[in-house]
C-alpha cells in the first residue's frame, strides 16, 4: 500500500472515530442534547432547518457576502499594498498607522458600523472588507520591499519604464506573497461575515447561530458552524487551486 493511501485511510478512520464518539459518548454520559446534540440529532435538525428556516437562502447569503467582502477587501489591500510598495516615502509615513489598525480587533467595529449604517448588509460587508484588507496589504507590501534589486536594475538597464518594471518584474515577483495573503484572508472573510451577522443581522448563518442560541437549539448552532466552515474551505480550496496554476513555475518542495 502506498504511503498516500495509508495517510488517507488513517485520516478517514479518525473522522469515523470522532463521529462515533460524538454520536454515542454524550448520551452514555447523560449529557442532554440541548448541550451536545448527537450526529443524528444534527442531521434531523438540518432537515428541519431546510424546511422551516430558509437554510439555503441563509447559506447562500452568507456565502455571497463572504465572497463579496473577500473580493473588495483583497482588491483594496492589494492596490494599496502595491501603491505603498512603490513609494518609500508614503510607506514610511503611513506604516505606524497601518500597524495600529492591523492590531486593532476589526470585529469590534461591528457595533459601530451598525450604529452608522443600520441593520442591513453594509455593516457585515464593511467588517469583512476591513478584516480581509490587512493580511493582503501586509503581504504585498513586504513582498514589494524584497523584490530582487538586481532584477529591477536589469530591467532599468534595458531602459524599461517604471510601469513596465512593475508589470514585468515587481508584480510577478510578489505573486507568491499575494497568493499567500489571499489564502489567509479567505479564512478571515468567513469570520468577518459571521460576526457581522451575529451582531446585527436578520439573515445568514451568523443570524441562525444567534437565533438558535437564543432557543437553546445547540444542533442548529452546530449545523450553522459546519456550514460556515464549508464555505471557508470552498473559498480556500479555490485559492489553492488557482495558486497551483499561477505558480506552476516554482519547483515543488520535497517534503
Amino acid at each position, binding site marked *: 500500500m502506498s504511503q498516500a493511501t495509508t495517510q488517507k485511510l488513517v485520516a478517514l478512520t479518525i473522522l469515523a472515530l470522532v463521529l462515533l464518539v460524538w454520536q454515542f459518548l454524550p448520551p452514555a454520559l447523560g449529557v442532554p442534547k440541548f448541550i451536545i446534540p448527537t450526529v443524528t440529532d444534527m442531521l434531523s435538525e438540518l432537515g428541519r432547518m431546510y424546511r422551516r428556516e430558509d437554510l439555503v437562502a441563509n447559506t447562500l447569503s452568507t456565502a455571497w457576502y463572504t465572497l463579496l467582502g473577500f473580493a473588495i477587501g483583497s482588491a483594496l489591500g492589494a492596490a494599496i499594498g502595491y501603491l505603498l510598495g512603490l513609494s518609500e516615502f508614503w510607506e514610511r509615513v503611513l506604516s505606524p498607522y497601518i500597524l495600529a489598525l492591523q492590531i486593532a480587533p476589526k470585529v469590534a467595529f461591528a457595533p459601530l458600523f451598525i450604529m452608522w449604517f443600520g441593520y442591513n448588509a453594509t455593516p457585515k460587508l464593511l467588517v469583512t472588507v476591513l478584516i480581509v484588507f490587512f493580511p493582503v496589504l501586509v503581504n504585498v507590501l513586504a513582498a514589494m520591499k524584497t523584490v*530582487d534589486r538586481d*532584477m529591477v536594475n536589469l530591467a532599468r*538597464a*534595458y*531602459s524599461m519604464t517604471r510601469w513596465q518594471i512593475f508589470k*514585468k518584474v515587481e508584480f510577478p515577483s510578489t*505573486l507568491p506573497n499575494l497568493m499567500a495573503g489571499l489564502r489567509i484572508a479567505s479564512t478571515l472573510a468567513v469570520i468577518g461575515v459571521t460576526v457581522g451577522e451575529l451582531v446585527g443581522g436578520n439573515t445568514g448563518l451568523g443570524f441562525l447561530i444567534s437565533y438558535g442560541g437564543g432557543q437553546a437549539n445547540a444542533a442548529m448552532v452546530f449545523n450553522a458552524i459546519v456550514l460556515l466552515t464549508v464555505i471557508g474551505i470552498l473559498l480556500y480550496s479555490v485559492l489553492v487551486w488557482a495558486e497551483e496554476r499561477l505558480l506552476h*513555475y516554482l519547483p515543488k518542495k520535497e517534503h
Partner: protein
Amino acid sequence: MALEFDHVTKTFALPSGQELTAVSDINFKVEKGEFVSVVGPSGCGKSTILSMTAGLYQPTSGIVRVSGEVVTKPNPHVGFMLQKDLLLPWRTIVKNVEFGLESRGVSKSERRDRAMAELERCHLKGFENHYPYQLSGGMRQRAALARTLAIDPDIILLDEPFSALDAQTKLLIQDSFAETIKEAGITTLLITHDLAESVIMSDRVLVLSERPGTVQREIEIGLPNREHPLARRQMTEIHDYANEIFTLLKLDRRAA
C-alpha cells in the same frame, strides 16, 4: 573606442553621513572587440565600475563613454550579467531571452526569431519552453548570456558570472562563453576574483588597487586562442601572468 573611463571618481554618501570613495581617478580604454578583465582585492570598486558603465548611476567626477557617447542614463547598448542569472522564474527560457527586447519596439515575431537564434548560438536549442528551475546552473548562465546578446549590445559587462558554478561546469561555461563572444565580436568587460580566469579569457587585464580603487597596472596577455580558455589553460605562460597579478595584489602579504 568601445569604452573609456576618463579620470572617474565615485563617492557614496553613507547613511552615517560619512563619505566613501569607491573608486578614484580611474583611467582606461577598451577597444572594439576587445576582452578586458578587471581584477582587484575585495571591495576595490569593481562593481562600481560596472554599474557606471551600465549607466545605473553616474560618476561623482570624470566621464564614462560608451562608443564615444557620454553615459548619463541606462544605456540600451550595454548588456550586463551577474553571478546570479536573473532569469525571471515565471517565464520560459525563450520568453526570458525576449525580455530585453520588449522595451525597444521590436515586433513580437521578430523578438521570437532573435531569441531563438541566440538560444541556438548559446547551445540551448530544444530548451526554449523550459522554465529556469528545470535547467542546471550552467545552462541558466548560458540562457542569461543569450538574453544579453539578444539586445545586440555594443559592449557586455560580466560581473563574476562563473563564480557560482561548480569547478567543472565553470571550465565548460568559460569556454562556451569565450567562443560565443569571440564569434559575435562583442567588446567585453569581465569583473572577476579568479586570477587564472582573468588570464585565460582576456586580451588584457586591469589590476585595481585597494579601496579607493584605481588602476595600478594594465597587463597585456600576449597569448593566442582567446576563444578557447580550455586550450589556454594548458600553456605554461598562464602561471607567469597569474603570478604577476598575484604579486601586484599583494595577496601573500594579506594572507599573513
